[in-house]
């Protein structure tokens, strides 16, 4: 991008030995372009996966029912990943997402809650998620705890509480209006309702991160918390909001899971924290904070879910899946390390 030479620039005090001629657009475009390039490459990976799926299982993979299944499965973890992306962008981590999903899903499906019907289940799931996020946020932002430890403690206690509530039993949902959303033929505006929720969360998340002061502050806190503080940003309040946001996403995801499975179980959301972190990282969000991409995270989720689907269709065991996922994470992080090295002068 060329800039018109402003009058101010033309007759600025051109002092002796003004900065050597290293100023003009030496690198500027690269940083702006890179996330797009990365998203393109993820799209490429996704395209390859679809080709592989279509090639190995032409009859089943491209079936609209199967594609819908992939998207539906991606929805639950996808919503969690959007929240996780914010937290990681701010330089934090939330290990408790899976446990919060479990707790919210079982609390929302107790007999007492189900008496209040659809609204009761949705409300409870969201409030439980927010409450857990609030505790995380207070411990981290105002209690001075390291995010890793605070959310690890939440992981343990939320899972424990979920087990206590259910006593290890599966809680069947009997509210018809909830179950109706989960049947394969349910559509809202021509889209499966879970996928619609995922899409809305994605769009809202993208706008929040890229178009609002909230998003800008998130990036500033993650990029350099000390500089953000000295620039007058309330870093602690921002951190509190971020863990609240992650908790909210977990609550929404818990509701989706209840809809999808028609039940609440204390084993729900197992290892979601790892899947969400992995998806965000391969999407291009820096684990050290300061850069995050919602689109990348969503693509990361889709890549993982598609792999799972293809492996299942080809009757490969989940152990092979896990190995493939691990390899993808390693590859993505190696790429990211190179990017970071170019970035930090």
């Amino acid at each position: 991008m060329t800039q018109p030479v402003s009058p101010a620039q033309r007759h600025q005090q051109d002092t002796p030995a003004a900065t050597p001629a290293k100023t003009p657009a030496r690198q500027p475009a690269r940083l702006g372009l890179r996330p797009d390039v990365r998203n393109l490459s993820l799209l490429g990976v996704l395209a390859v996966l679809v080709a592989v799926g279509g090639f190995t299982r032409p009859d089943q993979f491209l079936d609209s029912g199967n594609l819908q299944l992939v998207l539906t499965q991606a929805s639950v973890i996808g919503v969690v990943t959007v929240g996780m992306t914010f937290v990681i962008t701010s330089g934090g981590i939330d290990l408790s997402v899976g446990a919060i999903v479990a707790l919210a899903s079982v609390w929302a499906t107790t007999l007492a809650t189900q008496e209040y019907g659809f609204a009761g289940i949705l409300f409870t799931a969201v409030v439980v998620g927010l409450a857990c996020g609030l505790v995380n946020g207070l411990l981290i932002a105002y209690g001075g705890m390291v995010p890793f430890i605070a959310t690890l403690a939440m992981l343990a206690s939320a899972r424990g509480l979920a087990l206590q509530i259910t006593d290890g039993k599966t809680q069947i949902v009997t509210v018809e209006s909830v179950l109706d959303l989960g049947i394969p033929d349910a559509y809202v505006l021509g889209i499966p309702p879970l996928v619609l929720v995922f899409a809305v969360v994605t769009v809202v998340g993208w706008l929040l991160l890229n178009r609002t002061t909230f998003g800008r502050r998130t990036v500033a806190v993650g990029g350099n918390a000390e500089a953000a503080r000295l620039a007058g940003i309330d870093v602690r309040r921002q951190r509190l909001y971020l863990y609240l946001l992650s908790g909210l996403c977990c609550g929404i995801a818990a509701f989706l899971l209840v809809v999808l499975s028609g039940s609440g179980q204390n084993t729900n959301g197992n290892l979601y924290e790892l899947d969400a972190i992995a998806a965000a990282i391969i999407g291009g969000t820096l684990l050290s904070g300061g850069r995050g991409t919602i689109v990348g995270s969503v693509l990361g989720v889709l890549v993982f879910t598609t792999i799972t689907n293809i492996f299942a269709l080809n009757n490969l065991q989940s152990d092979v899946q896990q190995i493939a996922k691990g390899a993808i994470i390693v590859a993505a992080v190696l790429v990211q390390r190179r990017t970071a090295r170019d970035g930090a002068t």
Partner: protein
Amino acid sequence: MSGITKSFPGVRALDGVDLEVQAGEVHCLLGQNGAGKSTLIKILAGVHQPDGGEISWQGAAVTLRSPIAAMRLGIATIYQELDLVEGLSVAENIFLGHEPTTAGFVVRGRQARASATALLARLGHAEIDAGGLVGSLSAAQQQIVSMARALSHDVRLIVMDEPSAALDPDEVDNLFRIVAGLTADGVAVVYISHRLEEIRRIGDRVTVLKDGRAVAVGLPAKSTPTRDVVALMTGRDVEYVFPPRPGDAARAAGAEPVLRVEGLSRDGEFAALDLDVRPGEIVGLAGLVGSGRSEVLETVYGARTPSTGRVLVDGRPLRPGSVRAAVRAGIGLAPEERKAQGLLMLESVTRNVSVSTLSRFSRGGWLDRRAEREAARTATRELSLRPDNPDAPVRTLSGGNQQKAVLARWLLRGCRVLLLDEPTRGVDVGARAELYAVIRRLADEGLAVLLVSSEVPEVLGLADRVLVLREGRVVHTAPARELDEHRVLDLVMEGSPTP
């Protein structure tokens, strides 16, 4: 070492420096902050790689690819900031990385402790327990441990970066005994210090660095007159082209101070500090590292909580220890560590400039990015920030232009008090004059500026009024034109009684 050059992004740190050290001598390295001393010794220690030049060791050309490579040759460095692991014992620190082992990996702890005790005794500090934790030692004792670590290698050259800075006078005497013992064994010592009298006592030859060049090589340490050495270190140059001060009469005409600091103290850092800054005035704080300069600025800014005293803007006291209160009242800070404390290095110029003013460009949290970009561009153009591209990543800018991005942030916010901590650190010599002009212009436009710098000429040249700090107390206040560099250095270093 000959013809060593080294550039960092935006700064040429070394520009063809020669250094020759002989076995058994104490070679002193002198120079002001930013002259390139640290860079030079880091190259010698294998931490940085030179861009050009040659290093030869005992007659043969060598490449010091890493700190380990330098250590293998027998070059050990004792850094100013001690590099010890506090959670390990004294002996473990001394032998870190080259522990005596059995079968290659089982650490022989007892042997390490015995050797450590012997080393410490040789250094005259047998009272340090080799098994004790380093974290529980005093600064001086840690210094000794650092030195023991250097000696635990088969060392031929020791580089000491301001080893006396943390020491009491009698500990300094002990240090000198150690140095004398080393040179008697034929070990060469490169000694860096700001204190000329030390260099007279133990130095053999002196090399003076200034602005990345060696302006004098191999002067006799004992006989070169102090006047000549100081002249070499401070010699006026392009960097000290200061903008003229506007007539004092207009300003002294009793404008009300914008910033007033009353009895501000922080335990162990500074005490009972009073100062006023009026609109259009630049007040400078001069003092050595550790005199409390930066701490004062950060406390005024609310980044540190004072133990007593208060800060007032327009006569209204600020909530102590709150950066947000200070920013809201119209104070802005350009911090000392620009990259670590000031900038979002991954972000564009625009986003760095607008970060303190985001709410102005938003409605209900929604950003008007065009307005943001235009406002940032207006502010950066006012300061002639180059390149004139609001989307350029801030990390690609030179040091001077990065500093302008920080200033533009506060300009955009419309702040009334500007706190500048080492505003020209890491800024090219040539770009400094421009930055000085910018700062003066901001003051002329009515800002009150409080300036901290370890470079005395900078304080004297830029400020209207100067407060000299020594060990956390103001020892002298005077209009800048009534002071000169020697006078300030006297006040700052010798601690001569307040006149």
